[in-house]
């Protein structure tokens, strides 16, 4: 994915657009909640609302670094495969007798290494990230199948499965939600409150200018892909803990759900734009819409169709608004 230099709108208009986009997501989220609440008597229940979040926290954990990567003008298609590989490395070493927490660290390290390889190929060898991660998408999933084949690892200790299934104390707050909230704040601060975050936008807007200005573009790219690998592995820990088991086909197809949420969150697929609050809102919007449809027993295919329509709106609307804005200026 090459990054083209684009005319950057003046900051006030840009922030205005972004602001409007997040407001729109808030409105959509509110509408979704209202529709769900009016259609199903089971929606407005504290326990159900909290339990709903179990289903998209793993995707959400991956969406955080994915937002960074897309803002920086790249893409990572290997996240779900990397999740599979690192989870299977963790599970297989646990099965082989390793302590579960050491196995978990090993899995996290494997995910980070998987991401690092992506980063090195993109930054040092200068291959397009779409091609690199399409390759590792197949490679990492393949490794998972080579290690475990058709087998399954079960029997994780309950202290481990609590990461994916447990609640905080006696509250109805799921552990994965807390893990996500922690990382969402962390990634949000990193993107919006640090020099590193500003450089990520700069690289996404104009890589060439950044290189001429002495920005360590390659290092930023390597860091982002490594973070993506690490968070994928963490998502794998949560997911396998929630399942109480691990198979090589775990999280198959997650990458598209993650990219969908990030784009719906207002992150420009061409890079350079997007915010963390937008991404988090989009994750919850999709989660609420899906849960509402599940409560009304809407068939799976129709759920996918509706989510697809949401995404198309997400891509069309900013362009429409931009065109509207430029017309009003003219």
């Amino acid at each position, binding site marked *: 994915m090459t990054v083209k230099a684009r005319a950057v709108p003046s900051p006030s208009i840009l922030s205005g657009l972004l602001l*409007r986009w997040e*407001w729109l997501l*808030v*409105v959509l*989220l*509110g*509408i979704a*909640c*209202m529709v769900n*609440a009016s259609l*199903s*008597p*089971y929606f*407005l*229940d504290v326990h*159900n609302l909290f*339990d*709903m979040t*179990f*289903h998209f926290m793993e995707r959400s954990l991956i969406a955080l670094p994915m937002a960074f990567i897309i803002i920086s003008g790249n893409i990572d298609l290997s996240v779900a495969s990397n999740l599979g590989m690192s989870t299977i490395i963790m599970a297989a070493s646990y099965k082989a007798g390793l302590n579960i927490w050491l196995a978990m660290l090993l899995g996290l390290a494997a995910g980070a290494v998987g991401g690092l390889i992506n980063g090195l190929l993109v930054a040092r060898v200068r291959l397009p990230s779409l091609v690199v991660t399409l390759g590792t998408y197949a490679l990492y999933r393949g490794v998972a199948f080579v290690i475990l084949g*058709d087998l*399954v690892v*079960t029997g994780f200790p309950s202290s481990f*499965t609590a990461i994916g*299934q447990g609640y905080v104390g006696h509250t109805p707050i799921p552990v994965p939600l807390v893990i996500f909230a922690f990382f969402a704040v962390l990634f949000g601060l990193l993107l919006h409150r640090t020099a590193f975050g500003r450089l990520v936008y700069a690289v996404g807007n104009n890589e060439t200018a950044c290189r001429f200005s002495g920005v360590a573009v390659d290092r930023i790219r390597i860091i982002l892909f490594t973070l993506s690998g690490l968070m994928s592995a963490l998502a794998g820990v949560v997911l396998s803990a*929630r*399942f*109480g*088991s691990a*198979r*090589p*086909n775990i*999280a*198959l*197809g997650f990458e598209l759900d993650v990219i969908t949420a990030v784009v719906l969150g207002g992150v420009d697929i061409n890079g350079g734009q997007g915010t963390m609050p937008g991404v988090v809102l989009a994750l919850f919007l999709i989660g609420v819409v*899906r*849960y509402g449809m*599940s*409560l009304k*027993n809407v*068939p*799976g*295919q129709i*759920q*996918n169709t509706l989510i697809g329509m949401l995404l198309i709106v997400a891509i069309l609307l900013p362009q429409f608004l931009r065109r509207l804005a430029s017309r009003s200026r003219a």
Partner: protein
Amino acid sequence: MKSKLFVSLLLVIVILAACAPPTVAPPAEKPAAKAGFKIAMVVKNLGNPFFEAAQKGCNEAAAEYGDECIFQGPATPTAEGQIEIIDALIAQKVDVIAITANDPDALVPVCKKAMDAGIKVVTWDSAVAPAGRQIFVNQADMEQIGRIEVQMLAEMIGYKGQIAILSAAATMANQNTWIEWMKEELKDPKYKDMELVTTVYGDDLREKSYNEALGLFKSYPDLKGIISPTTVGIAATARALTDEGLCGKIALTGLGLPSEMAEYIKSGCCKAMALWNPIDLGYMTTVVSHLMASGEITGKPGETFKAGKLGERTIVDDGAGGGMVLLGPPFQFNAENIDQWKDVY
């Protein structure tokens, strides 16, 4: 400016409405009813004719017993999708969840959660692991299904040559068990000239199964026969054989729906196959679900009950200490009897 005001106004309304305290939670009391149960049948994926036939049986039994049949499944056969559905069913406080599992292990936690919420968990077709179920409605004896498919194929190819298996997904408990029994049957000396070269997985998706079949033709030019123990796989393989003009060169058998396979059975592309009646399977599952909900059975081995039109059944041991109900022996279809069945399911 005006639009900004409008948006903020709308926002306030929306947030107020969305955050309004929930009206009194629906009553959670469980009357000792004998009918009117909400029975949720969760299948591996939607758009699969086998499960649509099972739905017919579910509706039939639900009408007979005065229950409601909720039919639901994910778009693609994944455990994640099923977990999401089961969680939503728990929130809806259904009375029974009857599930055919995409992954016997990954579904255990959510099925336990359902049981903790007082929901009866019945498993059918492809079982959830014993910890996550209260009773298993088994279509037919696993061993019989596995062995019969090898026997049918051996007849077709004269007990000689390379054979392959085209299954559903690698995680499917039912297919995997049948394949184990196929391998067991193949150990018999009379199959010494038959060699199982590979097992491939079409994931119960038509296109993938079709492509896997084409892959088999290419990779194994001497292939003599294919067993596909899944209705989606066998239909896709039959179509691939027909498209490539390989009917007669490569024999095909397995588990197929008569309505989908009639043309191939008549053309000789698939001379024989087996299956149980999926409508009856859906019916039996729903009756068992009803009886579990009403408390007439508890799922322990040794209990007997009347399964509506299907007659008396006894709950047997599933081999892991739990209860299991058997539907009956698999039925073999061939050119002589296919016309009777092709319009039924």
